[in-house]
């Protein structure tokens, strides 16, 4: 039986727990499968370095490349090179631009636009379609952040035009920054009904700020990528809801998609895994995230 060498270049391991958990889940999944050999690389968030890593993987003539794009557009020429070298490419977690779709074998990951939309729906529910909210976004320039924001804003305008986004500021997936941004929002706006954060890590930062200011009770907090701290906050009733997204599912799906491609199976271009809404009502259906 043939052994496959699969190379993966990740976005930025260590920047948050999700990516780290993804990495170890991926390595575990590979270890379980005897005929898979993996080369795990990390781009440290730098597009140029990721392109170099794709080139290195092409150079090593791996059988397939999995890429977690640092940027949905800038990696396309590198993916094209891999494609031209006859190496199938699977994109994981965050999408690449349409222009690159013809060069990839498949995409596997969450649908971040859909996640944004789901959060918008939760916000509608929480505020009964009426109110003023602020948004704390992820790192500017990164696909996941842009897709979630985009999905959220579009759906919100559609679903409940009565909810107004007062302001959007980025907090770079960083809890302390989110806390600072929220503190400034709180001084600036006397009336905030809801906060949408690009992930729970930032959401909890915003919650902390509101708690310190004694205004947490008036505000509905909605996040994405449910973290353990977010899960607990929902349990305590301080946090309205989030999107459940498991890095383990994410990693396993990516590896499986790559293997399917290598084994010549018919694989759909877009493979989304489930990212359900999580609120106090259904929290018991979910395990607490490990990160």
């Amino acid at each position, binding site marked *: 039986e043939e052994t496959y060498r699969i190379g993966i270049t990740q976005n930025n*391991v*260590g*920047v*948050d*727990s999700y*990516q*780290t*958990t993804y*990495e170890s889940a991926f390595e575990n999944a590979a270890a379980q499968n005897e005929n898979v050999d993996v080369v795990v690389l990390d781009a440290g968030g730098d597009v140029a370095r990721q392109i170099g890593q794709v080139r290195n993987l092409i150079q090593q003539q791996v059988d397939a490349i999995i890429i977690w794009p640092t940027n949905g557009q800038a990696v396309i020429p590198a993916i094209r090179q891999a494609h031209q070298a006859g190496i199938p490419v699977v994109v994981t977690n965050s999408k690449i631009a349409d222009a690159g779709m013809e060069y990839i074998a498949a995409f596997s990951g969450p649908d971040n636009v859909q996640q944004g939309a789901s959060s918008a729906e939760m916000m509608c529910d929480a505020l009964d379609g009426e109110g003023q909210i602020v948004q704390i976004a992820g790192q500017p320039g990164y696909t996941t952040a842009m897709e979630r924001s985009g999905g959220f804003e579009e759906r919100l305008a559609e679903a409940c035009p009565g909810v107004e986004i007062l*302001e959007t*500021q*980025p907090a770079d997936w*960083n*809890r*302390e920054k989110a*806390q*600072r941004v929220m*503190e*400034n929002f709180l*001084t*600036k706006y006397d009336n905030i009904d809801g906060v949408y954060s690009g992930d729970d*890590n930032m959401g*909890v*930062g915003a919650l*902390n700020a509101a708690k*310190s200011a004694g205004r947490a009770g008036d505000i509905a907090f909605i996040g994405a990528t449910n*973290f*353990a*701290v977010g899960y607990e906050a929902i349990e305590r009733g301080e946090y309205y809801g989030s999107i459940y997204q498991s890095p383990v599912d994410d990693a396993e799906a990516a590896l499986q998609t790559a293997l399917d491609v290598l084994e010549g199976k018919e694989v759909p271009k877009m493979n989304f895994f489930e990212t359900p809404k999580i609120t106090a009502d259904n929290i018991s259906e979910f395990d607490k995230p490990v*990160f």
Partner: protein
Amino acid sequence: MLSKKHKAGLLNFLSAQGILVFFLICMFAFSLFSEQFLSQSNIMTVVRQASIIGIIAVGVTVVIIGGNLDLSVGSMLSFSTVLVVDLHDKIGPVGAILVMFALTLMLGAVNGFLVGFMRLNSLIVTLAMLSAIQGLVLIYSGGQNVDIANQSETWFSVFGQGYLLGIAVPVIIFALLAIIVQVVMSFTGYGRRIFAIGGNPVAAVYSGIRKNWCVFSTYLISAFCVACAALVLGSRVMGSQNNVGQGYELLVLAGIILGGTSLLGGAGSIWKTVIGVLILGFIQNGLLLLGYPYYTQWLVTWVIIILAVWLDLANKRKHLLTRHS
């Protein structure tokens, strides 16, 4: 003769305080456009937010006066914050704080050893340490976020969230450190020696000053300040990410520069740094209140650095001219 002296003193004072005047003008401009800007709660928020950078900047200013740089403070802050938060649940707050201070000082000692005793270039050494310490944090935490489990049941939150006589504890820590270090730098022999080393390291050695130890000690001071900042940061967030301090070294430097401390060593003061850090904080806050996107603050910072530089120069020129005539 006496009146001349007084005149010179006044001019000296004005030229030294140019940045302060500038600061007040900025505050005034912002307050025209935003009602909240000068509200007490906003000012308290800004000062509280600025204190983390301020606390670090106090230490880095000492290193800079001694003629060196410390770029590793950002990584070190990540390290110390992750450490203190992680250990909090494992060995309790007191142990966590003690271990965190000890290990942070040890990192400072490594910097100090390499720069002070091995006499390596501080820019490159602390740059290398920036990378290495970031790696250490990740290895320590395995790349995972750390959190304090029972946030409501620990007194640890006092450093970041507490108030004393209506003043936020981070601000008190910042003010205390700034005052103590300023006193040390301007009124003690130790301070004089650091200034001498920054001014001319060779002549300092020829004056019988133990340069190696003094340089070493400046890095300990810097590390101590980072540890204090980590205490505030960890207690404020009650959790930490591995990259929580990323980029702080540049903010700290920007604050110090805005305050007007030259990076060449042998000159500068803590109190200027305090002003610089506050300017940075108020600009950030003011622009946010006016609704400009966050990145406009970078442009404004640039412009202000250039202006501060010109202002300083113009002041010196004026100074020379008045003395001449």
